[in-house]
């Protein structure tokens, strides 16, 4: 729906009236985006039901009897504009960024924020001017500096709003430079925050690499992604709150987030720098193009997580085979999304003991990527079926290969042929973290061009 509304808004800005078509249940999101894009009057016609859950005769009947007549009506003058009937999802008025919006005890503040959709459902820390000022003391940047504009709400992401939401989430003041870097990642156009409310329900994962892991007490060991260490937990919570409050992505009743089932925020993942150094492998921040002395935040989408991947055996190859099976199960036919949209960046979190076993066998990060690139395979028919079911009804693997859009490894017409899940194995991220006393790894499946990994260096503490 966001892309449809952006297309409709572009037409309207060019002076051509538009009508948008969406599935039932997407009106709220469409209207919210229409408001944000300055086109609240664009009519939205909804298909009654779920397009891909209807058989073809039902689909055609609904189109003929309901959708097409409504579209034709909406194209001509006198059609009901949606502008007057829209509920204002956020009765926020126009407060100044420095305004105090409520005074009261903890319950009153929490109720006020909850009633306006400004919380994630958990209790909050009141963002008092004093607490916000304490956060802002950890940066030299102007509180009004605009880091970017976050869609779909089209709100400015400022240094101050980062501090306010950092307080809300329970962060410490010294976390602010990390939070600023996260907000910059979210605001980077490459990240496509405007699609963070898409139906797959992907969730941003924050990855920290560098000295900041130690200085701010992030957990990179046992339970690395378990709620329990304040730095990991509060920074992860901040990320989801910032998407909610500044990007404007909310589950019902506001319903601007269409994640069908979705998941909760991820605790921030911290890299085990000592384990990396012991192996002589480049840390994740160097993989991302930064220096060894830098502290770096990376944010990327995660649409699902693998089962725990236990690996063992006499050789590095034994570990590689186990990693391949675990990642193949996790990614499965979702790999079509990378082939359809041209980007795919899964992340493999490798247990330090597994990494050590691989290194002893002469396997480094590039060798892991090469092995997975060669051995992560899926049938063409599984990709094709998954694509149709998700909604990519024009996806045609054979045609993409025949046209040269996909290379010769994808060529053919046999639906049972095996093709690589990873078009570019070099885009696989690898981070060392987790229990050093076990042989476990995990795979994190990314969501194609939505939530492509974006990294920022964390400014030094003031």
């Amino acid at each position, binding site marked *: 729906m966001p892309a449809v509304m952006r297309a409709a808004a572009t037409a309207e800005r060019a002076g051509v009236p538009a009508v948008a078509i969406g599935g039932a249940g997407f009106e709220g999101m469409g209207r919210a985006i229409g408001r944000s894009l300055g086109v609240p009057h664009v009519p939205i016609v909804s298909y009654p039901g779920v397009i891909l859950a209807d058989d073809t005769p039902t689909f055609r009947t609904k189109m003929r009897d309901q959708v097409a007549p409504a579209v034709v009506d909406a194209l001509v003058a006198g059609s009901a504009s949606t502008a007057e009937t829209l509920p204002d999802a956020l009765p926020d008025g126009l407060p100044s960024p420095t305004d105090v919006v409520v005074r*009261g005890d903890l319950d009153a503040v929490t109720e006020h924020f909850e009633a306006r959709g400004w919380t994630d459902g958990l209790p909050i820390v009141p963002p008092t001017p004093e607490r916000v000022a304490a956060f802002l003391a950890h940066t030299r940047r102007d509180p009004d500096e605009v880091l970017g504009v976050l869609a779909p709400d089209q709100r400015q992401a400022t240094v101050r709003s980062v501090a306010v939401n950092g307080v809300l989430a329970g962060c410490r003041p010294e976390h602010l430079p990390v939070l600023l870097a996260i907000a910059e990642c979210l605001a980077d156009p490459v990240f496509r925050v405007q699609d963070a409310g898409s139906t797959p329900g992907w969730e941003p994962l924050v990855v920290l690499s560098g000295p900041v892991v130690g200085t701010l007490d992030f957990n990179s060991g046992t339970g690395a992604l378990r709620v329990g260490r304040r730095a990991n937990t509060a920074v992860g919570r901040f990320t989801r709150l910032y998407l909610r409050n500044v990007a404007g992505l909310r589950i019902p009743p506001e319903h601007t987030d269409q994640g069908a089932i979705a998941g909760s925020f991820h605790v921030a993942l911290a890299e085990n720098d000592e384990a990396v150094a012991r192996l002589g492998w480049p840390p994740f921040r160097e993989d991302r193009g930064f220096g060894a002395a830098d502290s770096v935040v990376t944010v990327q989408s995660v649409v699902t997580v693998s089962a725990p991947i236990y690996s063992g055996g006499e050789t590095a190859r034994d570990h590689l085979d186990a990693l391949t099976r675990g990642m193949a199960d996790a990614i499965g036919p979702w790999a079509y999304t990378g082939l359809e949209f041209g980007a795919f960046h899964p992340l493999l979190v490798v247990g330090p003991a597994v990494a050590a076993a691989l290194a002893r066998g002469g396997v480094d990060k590039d060798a892991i990527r090469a092995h997975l690139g060669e051995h992560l395979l899926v049938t063409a028919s599984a990709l094709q079926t998954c694509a149709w079911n998700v909604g990519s009804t024009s996806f045609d693997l054979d045609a993409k290969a025949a046209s040269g859009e996909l290379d010769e490894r994808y060529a053919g017409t046999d639906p049972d042929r095996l093709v690589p899940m990873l078009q570019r194995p070099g885009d696989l991220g690898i981070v060392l973290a987790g229990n050093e006393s076990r042989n476990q790894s995990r795979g994190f499946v990314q969501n194609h061009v939505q939530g492509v990994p974006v990294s920022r260096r964390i400014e030094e503490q003031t």
Partner: protein
Amino acid sequence: MEPTYEAMWPLGPKVADDVAEQERPDRLAGVRVAYLWDELFRGPEMFEVISDVARERHGDVEFVGWEEFGNFHASAAEERKVLDALPELLRSHRVDLVVAAVGA
């Protein structure tokens, strides 16, 4: 007695400019309607039915196919390219109205 807190606004100013509502024709006869498609959810089948119903009700309606404009639901770079080119393409095809689909 519980302390009293003053809490600051966690959102931020919106920056979008409103676009004036465009005038629509009273009838579709003689009008050119463009389809924009994100290559999702059976769009061409939808467009075929819409075209049929529009012609039954309004007579001579012209349609410009989605292929003329490209897929606006792709990579960030591709979407930008498609949308940047859209105003000129709408002009060159003398488009009066747009149907953008399919959001779900």
